[in-house]
């Protein structure tokens, strides 16, 4: 890992709903090194998208960053004005959002939508120049240049995802955040989209943060994997260590639950359900589902501690130190 491009410190993001505050991201601390591919994995509602949106400073109301800092290349993004943030979004940090239909305007041509990125940032001086650059971006994403004239509905799911990636990397950002970019896609198309991201990463020297619920997908492509559970980072470390010798019982459960064509032929899961983040369990948030929980886990929150080249938040994992 090179020097960190991103440092999250005790980041907290809550949604203030009528029924109470949803503690979607609740004290996350982690570094991402320049040139790394970090995957953030976790199940539905664990706070992955909220974390990504916080980095972009795009958390929608009633959500709000309530504490902590986000250092991007040394600058605390939580302290920037909206105008300053606009110069970072797209230009230095690109993002592919989770819902592809929501992020493409159905009545505007693909080319116009990518051209916006160039015009907003004053990279192109005319509409014509912006459209020409959009064509180049499409080509970089593996689509024909002249598809700038197409509308989103004329593209397949995989092609739409390529167009969105083209828009996200149009300004050659240093960091690309891709939130579930292949969830709605079939495995063959998914693999090709992952190849595309990998290729662009190499070509542009980008850092990549991939958000996925699929730990196998993460394991195949990343340098490190961060595992989230109920708004908390529970384990973070190099891929091989995480998948071959998980320290956190949730990480272990997740890996064993993932059906694998080359794994054991056995149905495995984790008993119980993830918690309501308005009233998360006391102590370790995983304790009601944890096969290794001790009395202490019910009352005391395990801190995120360094174990070798990993971070882990589990009392039982620390016994192995």
């Amino acid at each position, binding site marked *: 890992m090179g020097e960190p491009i991103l440092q999250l410190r005790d980041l907290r993001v809550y949604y203030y709903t009528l029924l109470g505050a949803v503690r979607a991201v609740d004290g996350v601390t982690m570094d991402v090194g320049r040139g790394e591919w970090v995957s953030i994995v976790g*199940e*539905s509602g664990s706070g992955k998208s909220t974390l990504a949106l916080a980095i972009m400073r795009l958390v929608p109301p009633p959500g709000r960053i309530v504490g902590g800092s986000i250092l991007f290349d040394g600058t605390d993004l939580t302290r920037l004005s909206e105008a300053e943030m606009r110069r970072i979004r797209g230009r230095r940090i690109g993002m592919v959002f989770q819902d592809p239909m929501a992020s493409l305007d159905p009545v505007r041509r693909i080319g116009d939508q990518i051209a916006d990125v160039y015009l907003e940032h004053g990279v192109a001086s005319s509409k014509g120049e912006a459209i020409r650059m959009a064509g180049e971006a499409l080509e970089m994403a593996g689509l024909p240049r002249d598809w700038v004239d197409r509308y989103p509905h004329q593209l*397949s*799911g*995989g*092609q739409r995802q390529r167009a969105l990636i083209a828009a996200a990397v149009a300004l050659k950002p240093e960091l690309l955040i891709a939130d579930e970019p292949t969830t709605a896609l*079939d*495995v*063959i*198309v*998914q*693999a090709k989209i992952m190849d595309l991201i990998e290729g662009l990463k190499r070509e542009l020297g980008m850092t990549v943060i991939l958000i996925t*619920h*699929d*730990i*196998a*997908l993460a*394991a*195949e492509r990343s340098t490190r994997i961060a595992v989230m559970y109920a708004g908390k980072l529970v384990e973070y470390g190099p*891929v091989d260590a995480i*998948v071959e010798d998980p320290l956190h019982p949730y990480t272990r*459960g*997740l*890996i064993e*639950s*993932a*059906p*694998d*064509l*080359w*794994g054991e*032929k*056995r*149905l*495995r*899961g*984790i*008993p119980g*359900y*993830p918690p309501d983040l308005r009233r998360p369990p006391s102590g370790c948030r995983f304790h009601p589902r944890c096969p290794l929980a001790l009395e202490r886990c019910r009352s005391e929150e395990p801190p995120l501690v360094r174990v070798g080249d990993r971070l882990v938040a589990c009392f039982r994992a620390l016994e192995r130190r």
Partner: protein
Amino acid sequence: MPGGVILEAVGLRKYFVKGGGILGGPRRVIKAVDGVTFTLRRGETLALVGESGSGKTTTGKLVLRLLEPDSGRIIFDGEDITHLPESKLRPLRPRMQMIYQDPYWSLNPRKPVGEAVAEPLIVHGLASREEARREALKLLERVGLTPPEDFYWRIPAQLSGGQRQRVVIARAMILKPELVVADEPVSMIDVSMRAEILRLLKDFQRDYGLAMIFITHDLSVARLVADRIAIMYLGRIVEMGPADAILEDPRHPYTAALITAAPSVRLRRRRRYEIRGEIADPSRIPGGCRFHPRCPRALERCRSEEPELAESEPGRLVACHNPLPKGWLSKWLSSGGAS
């Protein structure tokens, strides 16, 4: 263990026509299911696997007569039900059930889930309201929604996704069906909670000896539940056989592409068998072998002649003019290359 044949599907076809009416738009014929043949035995699970739009759901609806086939035959427990009128189908309906993918849409948001589970017994005149309620409580308990009295009066919004899927399963199983089509029953459910749902289905299967068509786009899930797998591509079965045999030794190039593209924790650095492009539009199915424009093994013949689904070895069927040789996959994976 599989018993006698409960279902035969023979040459099923279902085309949808879009556009061309007063609303305009070019007229398109979508060949959703285009000649599907298989049999299913009691107690057996057949997984229908394929990419989005390959015709899995349409096939499932056809065999349950939830959709009218354009041609082909459906034989249920020895009786040809292809053209049975609804009045004659009604007594058969409780014996065949469908479980839908999305537990959000398959339940009435205002109806207490216990009532939803009891309802099929009442609708089919198989029990009084009182008996149906008692039976529903038993089923809720059975699917792990305990205490059942507490869950009975909840509405779907008060349950998690995994709990809702249990309700949907209880509702299908209360009729003790003989044939169930489970359409992606776990794809909306978090991976840590899938095993319990799948185990539940397997337990019901064992207890009722029911035959199951398990629809999924995920081969690794199919491997855990299916006795046999049928791989679908653009409305046709291109390969079918025992689950392990197909996954360990695929014959069809498309099956090989699906297998090697499946993300895996255990075999992270494997070489994929790459195919070109994406699945075609089912209103513009290529001539000859419908897979030929994407196929790395296509021969001249594949452009003009459609391969029949034919026996390649006992118990296995493949529709391909140039199938992969025996033992291809293990060689591909161990040598990291060379087709």
